[in-house]
């Protein structure tokens, strides 16, 4: 075989998969004349990605009917919406979930729960007709061959509720698209409206236009930055005006790629060194810290130079700090002692959105409001052996507590200051940290971890999961293994739930209080977007049957009705996660891996 001769193929291009293949050039030209696009200059964009190309491939014109639900509060979005014509109504109050088609499932009573033992069908995945289609307050229809979900009675939903209208030229949903944060309001089309949907890839490209980018950023800073800053525990004592100064001084930056999950299968095969090399650097070990870095979304790897390579010591998630300890030490040092450099490097895993607060701002406006007791000594001067759990300084240990009934308020302020880069975990080895990062298991907030040194392979967990789900378990007792820990195949209820992105009806959604991601089957249309998006393949599309075993089929197309199924943390069962309850040897646990603390603590009890 002559290996020097190449095989000629066509290189895959950026816009091989346009958002709307039916977008015509006429539409594009018309768009070019509307709104902000009219003011944009072509030379702002590169030749590879011209403005027209963006408009053609990364945009879609949606014609909406009255009552169509465009975005839902709490959903993750991947598109911004620009109103071309018509108006939409933004609800300022939280709309009841039933009106959006996804009623909060009621907890089963004890009697109902026990009756699951004998109300078992001999067939898998039995559903009643009510669970197949929603007939209540929403209806699902296809518009432009696009599944949509609409309110049955628009005025009834908004009656007595505060809302605001948005008209042509206004844009919404761009923050959620760019920064992977949940939507903050529900937006419903008020009348027949024409809306331009811009997916986030295009949005990022459009930000090359200075005015557009400034507009977006101004919008963010005006409406979202202060609330985001308020969520950070370090800044909780800052008064309003100081916080405004900090906000004005802070810089928003992004690293990495938002579509990390699409090529995750490839990158996880690489060795740790190669992976580290690929990751974009945010901060470099040995440099004098110039900014306090706060992570707003995504995950970042913290590593130290070790021999010829880099050793991962931790990973950071949302609202974690980097460089705080070094900056604080530098603040407190005397004039004679030299400034302390960064002890670790920071790299973006997947994508990371950061907030960089300059050191001067930190010195002047932030540090005075930090409790002295919450400052830990730097790890640069020798290994800090204090365990991670101690580093989690007071004030709110309740939020750290993992009770049997897993209710963990996320996205809520009040979590203690943690600077995991300067702390050392006793029981989590470097290899495990790197494994977690490599497999992106750090995304999981309810990762099913099985201690193989205690698991007797009895399958009680599988049976318990099956009992609570009509005989079919939502988990598999197998998965990637590191040393004696197995990370089993069950929905991890990720911190960064990529499965939520793209659900056309909002059937898959995160519960605001508990953080559980569950699927509301009546409005699930079985498109399989979530199953394809999940990088861990924890979502399964199943055929559903009635109690006689007959599969449901679509009346018009004759295709079998599929529903997405996955672990739901037994949120309707009185007991909470049945798998964890059922394990007789404390081998299985649903654990939050977005911080190393819980895992470290759990491993510490294994003696």
């Amino acid at each position, binding site marked *: 075989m002559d290996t020097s001769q190449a095989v000629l193929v066509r290189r895959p291009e950026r816009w091989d998969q346009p958002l709307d293949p039916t977008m015509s050039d006429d539409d594009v030209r018309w768009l070019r004349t509307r709104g902000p696009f009219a003011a944009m200059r072509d030379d702002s964009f590169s030749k590879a990605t011209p403005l027209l190309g963006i408009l053609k491939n990364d945009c879609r014109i949606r014609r909406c009917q009255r009552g169509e639900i465009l975005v839902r509060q709490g959903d993750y979005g991947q598109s911004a919406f620009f109103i071309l014509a018509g108006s939409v109504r933004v609800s300022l109050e939280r709309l009841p979930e039933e009106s959006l088609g996804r009623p909060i499932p009621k907890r089963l009573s004890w009697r109902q729960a026990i009756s699951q033992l004998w109300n078992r069908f001999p067939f898998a995945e039995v559903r009643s007709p009510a669970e197949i289609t929603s007939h209540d307050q929403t209806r699902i229809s296809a518009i432009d061959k696009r599944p949509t979900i609409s309110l049955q009675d628009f005025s009834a939903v908004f009656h007595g509720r505060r809302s605001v209208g948005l008209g042509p030229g206004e844009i919404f949903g761009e923050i959620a698209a760019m920064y992977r944060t949940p939507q903050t309001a529900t937006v419903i089309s008020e009348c027949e409206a024409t809306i331009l949907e811009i997916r986030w890839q295009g949005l990022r490209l459009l930000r090359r236009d200075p005015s557009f980018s400034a507009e977006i950023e101004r919008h963010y800073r005006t409406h979202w930055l202060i609330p985001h800053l308020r969520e950070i525990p370090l800044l909780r004592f800052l008064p309003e005006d100081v916080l405004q100064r900090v906000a004005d001084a802070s810089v928003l930056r992004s690293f990495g790629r938002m579509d990390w999950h699409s090529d995750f299968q490839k990158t996880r095969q690489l060795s740790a060194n190669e992976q580290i090399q690929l990751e974009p650097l945010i901060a470099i070990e040995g440099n004098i810290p110039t900014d306090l870095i706060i992570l707003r979304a995504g995950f970042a790897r913290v590593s130290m130079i070790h021999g010829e390579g880099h050793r991962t010591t931790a990973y950071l998630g949302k609202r974690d700090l980097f460089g705080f300890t070094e900056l604080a030490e530098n603040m407190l040092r005397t004039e004679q002692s030299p400034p302390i450099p960064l002890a670790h490097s920071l790299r973006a895993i997947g994508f990371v959105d950061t907030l960089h607060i300059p050191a001067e701002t930190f010195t002047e406006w932030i540090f005075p409001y930090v409790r002295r007791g919450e400052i830990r000594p730097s790890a640069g001067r020798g290994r800090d052996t204090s365990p991670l759990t101690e580093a989690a300084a007071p004030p709110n240990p309740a939020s750290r507590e993992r009770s049997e009934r897993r209710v963990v308020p996320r996205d809520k302020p009040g979590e203690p200051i943690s600077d995991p880069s300067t702390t050392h975990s006793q029981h989590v080895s470097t290899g495990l940290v790197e494994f977690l990062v490599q497999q992106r298991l750090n995304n999981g907030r309810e990762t099913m971890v099985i201690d193989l040194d205690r698991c007797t392979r009895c399958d009680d967990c599988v049976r318990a999961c099956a009992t609570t789900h009509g005989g079919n378990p939502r988990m*598999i007792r*197998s998965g990637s293994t590191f040393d004696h820990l197995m990370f089993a195949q069950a929905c991890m209820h990720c911190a960064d739930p990529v499965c939520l992105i793209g659900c056309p009806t909002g059937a898959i959604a995160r519960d605001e209080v508990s953080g559980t991601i569950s699927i509301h089957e009546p409005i699930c249309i079985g498109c399989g977007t979530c199953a394809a998006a999940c990088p861990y393949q924890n979502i399964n599309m199943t055929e559903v049957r009635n109690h006689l075993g007959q599969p449901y089929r679509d009346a018009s197309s004759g295709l079998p009705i599929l529903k997405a199924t996955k672990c739901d943390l037994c949120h309707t069962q009185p007991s909470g996660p049945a798998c964890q309850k059922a394990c007789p040897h404390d081998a299985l646990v649903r654990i939050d891996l977005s911080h190393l603390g819980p895992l470290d603590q759990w491993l510490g009890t294994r003696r």
Partner: protein
Amino acid sequence: MRKADPQPRLPITIDRPGDRWQCGFCESESPCARGPSADGTCCQATPENPCRPVRRWSAFRRLLATSIIAAGCGILLIAFGSPWRQDFLAPGSLTQSHAQILGGTLASQRCAACHVSAGQDWSAWFSSAGEHHRGTTQDSLCMACHHTTIQPSRGTLAHNLSDAELDSLRAFRDGLENNRWNSTDRALVQSVVHSENTIACAACHREHRGSQHDLTALSDANCQSCHRRSFERFSTTHPDWKQWPYMGRGTIAFNHQSHHGYFASKNLALDCTLCHQQTASKSNPVTSAASSKIIRVPSYESACASCHDPTLQAASAGGIAVLELPTLDIDALGDDSDEIPGDGSHGARWPAELTAADAFHISPLTAWLLSSDPQAMAAIATLSHSTYRPWEGSPTPAQAQAIGELAAATESLLQKLGTPLETLFVTSLDRQFAADIFHGLPPQWIHETAEAWLARFAVKESTDEERFESAASASPGASPGPLQGWYRDDLSLRLEYRGYGHADRVLIALCELASSSALEPQQREELRKLPIVSSCLQCHRKIVPGDRSGWRGHPPKPEQPSFTRFSHEPHLKIGQLADCTYCHRIEMQTNSAAALEPSDFLPLERVSCAHCHQPGGAGDQCTQCHRYHVEPIKKSL
């Protein structure tokens, strides 16, 4: 640290772990979505592609568990349905004795010998006892056999004694001389699991513990579950014995100390075994010396006779005048006296031998014989209390009358002699005494004696010379001879008795008479002063007239039930204990006056027992020395 290769993620497939069958994965790589049905048939199976479902572990587990449970229930059903049900259910063998007795009964009835419910139907368990067994308790079933050794009515009482009996025992102990028990010691009964009067047999005697199980084995704690004052160790907290076993004086006033001194003066050792140990008797020389019995109160014959018989013989040598006609001063009555009974002739009714002017004296026994005659008793009283001195003058008319009456009464007494005693005495006590006194006398001899003496009453007046002649012609040798028995002195008109020695029946009766109210106190006193009587009474101090048991030597209150059993025999085998004084020490008193009093022994010291009776030595269990069933128990079957 082992890092596993990243495994490809498997999509979640249809996996129903609760089913009993799973797909056999015949030719396909993955199972079909349907899976086998509950009974194990596969819908996808075709003749070309036979898919055989495989049984899951849960099915195999169910099978195994069901078979084990079925086996367990099956055994029960078979056992309960078979005729060997009782043998199957019996919880272990009985003790040998019970097993042997019940061995012959049918298995179906064996349990009913002791268990009330065994004889009942199953349904009776859910209702009150059946009609046939109303009121039956297990105790009554025990008593059905054991009533010969324990009274059924007493079976459930504590120590088989009623509360009143226990109280009286307690009082007896408290009232003993030198009882130094404090008041706090008195209450011995404490709160218990069982009440005092309903202590079931099974409270202590638990069966079904194997054939060699000792039914009477009980721990110290068991015994003390009733006793409020509990004793931890025999050698430390067990109370001292104080009066036990001596318990005060017995019926025989025996003075160990004086005997000790006596033997010492003869240079002989006072060997306890001389008296207190019965050696092999002549009649049974086979009995070895080692099996000699220790007796607390030996018999007179074995212990005392060798020394005291000669003394008694000597004391009784003089004999006792049972019937001695009194000497009266008939002459003092004069010729013109009308008091003399008879035909009026002077001196016609009184023997001349008994006429004298002595001071009046009548022997106590003679007075007793006359006691049924009130006139005679009055006369005796008059004469006894008077200051009449015949040689000082004439008697007073009362005295003269008394003399006359007494003479007449004496004559009539003689006439009654030989007739049944009922004619002599009125009270039965007197008759009993008389019967005992005169039992050896042949009736004919009495008759002859009476006739001979009555003949003297009819003698005419004679001169002094005639009197001497008659006296000379009287039967010679009237003093008693060397042999025991009755003697007659015709000269002084006396009936004498010479005793046979110890335990002479007549002497017993005489001693009892000397202690009874049949005699006047003065006469009693006089009788007691007789040598033989005083000899008897020196040792036999507690004579109750009419109660012969008072003569026997026995410990005080022999009928008291004893909670303690003690046998000298095993102790005598130990060389050091062969000397009785190791435990029994005589309390030597220095006061000579008190020395004549019967002396006690010093209290037995517990420490001398505790030397050997230690837990690892001779044993210090309660049951070793104490018994629970306090009624006299015969040897068990």
